[in-house]
Each structure stands twice: as structure tokens, then as C-alpha cells.
């Protein structure tokens, strides 16, 4: 598809800028959380662990949405060079979800830190509390995607790589459901995320339908033969 307009080639320094932009929230959140906890600052309010944990979760979703936004953005703008940055965003999403999980286990539940919490507690949380089960499932599904993100793995897996990486459509859905179930009553924010995700997935579905329709339209040769 020909570029509709815009920048046909990647602006210089874009890659570095993107990495810095994706990194910044993590640095800020983790610093603020630890500083509030152990150095008496007050960046994140009275309960820095919960605030930090939630922020890292929300940033995971934003980065996952970023990976899904690349293709529509390419279509609209013709900036095909965006494609290679999908991996950057995907890997950052994985980094954020790891930090989210670490915050939960070490600072919130305090496995191995509080004498009053044991592995049995976290096992119970994961198995018996649906919103945690779903969140954990989303995390586990992200692991193979992160592991197979190298050029070598892409080459080795061939066709299967594409199949495996279709999980990028499932993972954010699980993430949003996890968020939705975690809030008590005011679902405004998860609803905004859900709406945004629905838009992205709708665009995909429509695109897939168009492609399928194009593939099943009889070719001129067939029409003539009939």
C-alpha cells in the first residue's frame, strides 16, 4: 500500500526516543514508590505500594495497546517503519508486567518478606481469586512472546511464530478484565481501557473481513469461465 502522506522514512533518533519514553514511567514509579516507602517522601500518597502497583499495571496495558496501535497507524499514515518498533513496545509491556508482579509479590503480599505470609497464601490468591487468576494467566501468556521476540526465534519458528504471536489479541483482553474485576465499584477507568481496546480489536476484525472478502471474490478468469 502506498503511503497516504507523512514521513516515508524514520526520523533520526526515533528509536532512542521511543525507548526513553517507554522507560520513563517505570523509572519514575519505581523510584517514587521506594522513596516513599523507605525514605519518607510522599510522591504517591499514603499507600505508595498500592499506587505504584496500579500505575505499573496501567502502563502495562498502555504499552500492550501501543503494540496493537502500530498496524492501524501504519495504514493511516503510511509510516511503515513503525513496524519494527512493535517489538520494543511489546518487550516494555513485558517489563512493566514483571514489575507489576514483583511489586505485588514482594511489596504488597510480601512473600519472603513478611513473616505472616507464606507461599500458601499467594497460591490461594492465584487459584481462588478469579481476577488474580486472570492476571496471572495474562502474564504467563506474555512469557513465550517475550522469549520468542529475537530475530533468531522468528526465523526458527517460521509460520508458527505468527500463530503464537496472535496471543497479542488475547493478552490485553485478559489484562482489561483483570483490571475491571479488581476495582470495587467505580469502573470508569477500566471501562475507558475496555472501550479503547474494543476499538482496536474492531479495526482488526474489520480488516480481516475485508482481506477475506478480497480473497474469496472470484478472479476475472473464473468469472469468464462461468
Amino acid at each position, binding site marked *: 500500500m502506498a503511503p497516504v502522506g507523512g514521513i516515508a522514512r524514520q526520523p533520526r533518533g526515533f528509536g532512542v526516543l521511543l525507548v526513553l519514553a517507554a522507560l520513563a514511567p517505570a523509572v519514575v514509579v519505581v523510584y517514587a514508590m521506594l522513596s516513599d516507602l523507605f525514605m519518607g517522601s510522599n510522591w504517591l*500518597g499514603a*499507600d505508595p505500594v498500592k499506587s505504584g502497583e496500579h500505575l505499573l499495571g496501567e502502563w502495562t496495558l498502555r504499552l500492550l495497546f501501543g503494540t496493537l496501535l502500530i498496524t492501524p497507524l501504519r495504514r493511516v499514515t503510511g509510516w511503515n517503519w513503525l513496524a519494527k518498533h512493535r517489538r520494543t513496545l511489546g518487550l516494555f509491556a513485558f517489563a512493566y508486567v514483571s514489575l507489576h508482579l514483583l511489586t505485588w509479590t514482594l511489596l504488597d503480599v510480601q512473600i519472603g518478606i513478611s513473616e505472616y505470609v507464606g507461599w500458601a497464601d499467594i497460591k490461594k490468591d492465584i487459584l481462588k481469586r478469579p481476577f488474580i487468576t486472570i492476571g496471572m494467566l495474562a502474564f504467563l501468556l506474555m512469557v513465550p512472546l517475550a522469549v520468542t521476540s529475537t530475530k533468531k526465534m522468528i526465523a526458527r519458528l517460521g509460520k508458527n511464530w505468527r500463530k503464537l504471536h496472535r496471543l497479542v489479541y488475547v493478552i490485553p483482553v485478559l489484562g482489561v478484565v483483570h483490571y475491571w474485576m*479488581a476495582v470495587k465499584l467505580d469502573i470508569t477507568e477500566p471501562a475507558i481501557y475496555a472501550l479503547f481496546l474494543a476499538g482496536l480489536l474492531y479495526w482488526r476484525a474489520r480488516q480481516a473481513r475485508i482481506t477475506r472478502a478480497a480473497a474469496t471474490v472470484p478472479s476475472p478468469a473464473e468469472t469468464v469461465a462461468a
Partner: protein
Amino acid sequence: MIDTTMTRSALPSSEITPESVYLDRRRFLAAAGVLGAGLVVAPALGACAPAAADASQQGSLGTPYGLQPYDKPNSYEDVTSYNNFYEFGTGKEDPKANAQQFTTKPWTVKVEGLVSKPGDYQLEDFLKPSKMEDRIYRMRCVEAWSMVIPWRGVPLADVIRRAGPTSAAKYVEFTTLYDPKRMPGQGMRYLDWPYNEGLRLDEAMHPLAMLVTGVYGRDLPNQNGAPLRLVVPWKYGFKGIKSIVRIRLTSAMPKTAWSEAIPSEYGFYANVNPEVDHPRWSQATERRIGQFRRIPTLMFNGYADQVASLYSGMDLRRNY
């Protein structure tokens, strides 16, 4: 040994100390040049904290009820900036941000239902016959965090006794102000406004149950439920209904806001119980605001000695 000094408050010490103590202390502190710079352990406090933890001690912030050694009062800042008060928004910082314009004068409390003396009372008249008390209680939120808070208020039993419950009265129902213009959160239907809460009459008559008008010896800030709120320290925090305008004695169990909203997660009793989990999280431990490490949650929030008898023979797993 109980240490009732604060570590993080910037309150002038005069605000939180019984007059007799602080007069001496103020001179001491002024001389030391540290007045208003946070609390230091003043000599006057030495006499207030004999060894064992029991309910009879007098601390600078009032009576510390059954506190553990790790129970230190949270800072005034934490107590007044981290609040669940959905009438002013659902975020923890929302109430402080959105409640500043809220006016609580004049304030009328309606007493009605199965009482011999129903009526509308100006708040001042309503409380005047009772002696104000300072008490330090643990506050355990159903969300598994907690604080230690020096409240000021009157025993709820006092007020109910004055209203004269009839023999048919079995429950007490409390209602928050409903005024969406003044309480912007009521524009959203998170809960079926106005907020209602309730206690069994014997729970309400328990000496630990309190109607609160102040914190840290100051008037209750709006975000903490001014001008009048309930504090029932052995129950989860959401039982502590805020900005009360009506108290009604009834024969039937009142409907309560959270148990109406999500009956599977919140019940009428809502007693703090480490053995009965919330469906979405464990209640066995809690994180104390201002401290990092989790601490164990105690049965009835540590007030079992005083209140367990209210529930003898009851299945607390079913009556959550």
C-alpha cells in the same frame, strides 16, 4: 510498652494534648525551641505510659485502647489525605480535594423511629450533654490496610440512651446527608445514595462504639466525615458512616449501603475477622499505612476481649 507519640505529624503539640499536660509541655517545648516542629517525647509523657497494654492508660492523644507495641498513631497528614468517602469521589485523595467547600454549619441530626424522644437537633445541642473523649483506635479497612487514629467524640450509647429506645427497638440505622450539589460524588450511582449503615442495638450500646466529631483533638476535616461520623473499631471501616443526618431506631435489620451494592462481598455485620476472607483478597494480614511490613489482622480488630461476647453462638462465616 505503649508509645503514643507521633513520629510524622506536623501538628502543634497543643492541639493533641490534654490541657493540663500541654501547658507544662508547651513551656518546655518553647524553651527548647521546637514548638510546632513535630512531637518529641516530652517529660510529661513519661507518667502516661506504664508497662502493659490495657485500656486504662492515658496518652497524650487520649486513651489508647488495647494497642499493640507496633501500633503508632498515623500522622495527621495520612489520616486526613487517604480516605474512602465516595460522596466526594472514589479515589483515596478525592475526598480531600473535593470536600473543602463543603459546609457543615448549621447541621441538624434527626432522631426518629422507635424512640420516646424523637426530634430534630442542632448538632451542638445533640452532643452537649455528653462528655467529649479522646480515644486512640485501630481502624481496619475492608481493603486490608489499616491506620491508628486518635478520635474525639462521645459514646454512641450516651446519645441513644437519651433518645429513649422503646422495647421494640432492635437496630439502629444511620443515614448520611443526601445533597448531590454539595456532595459531587452522589452524582454518580456507585452506591444507592444516601449511604446507610446500621448496628444491632446491643452493638450500638457497646462502650467502644463512638460518634466522632474530631481527630487529633481538632474538628473533623470534611474528608473524614464532618461534622459527625460513626466509629466502630471492631468492624471494617466502611461501617463508620460519615456526615450523619439521621439516626433511626428500628425493629428490622436496616439495609446498609455496601451490602446492598455487593451482597456477596459485604455483609451487615462486617466484623474484622482474619479467618473470613473477602472473596477477592485475604483478610489474614493487613498493611499499616506508614509502615512497610504486613502485620497480622486480629480478631475483632484486637477488641475481641471487649466485644466477642456480642456474637457468642453466631456463625461469623455466614454473618460476615
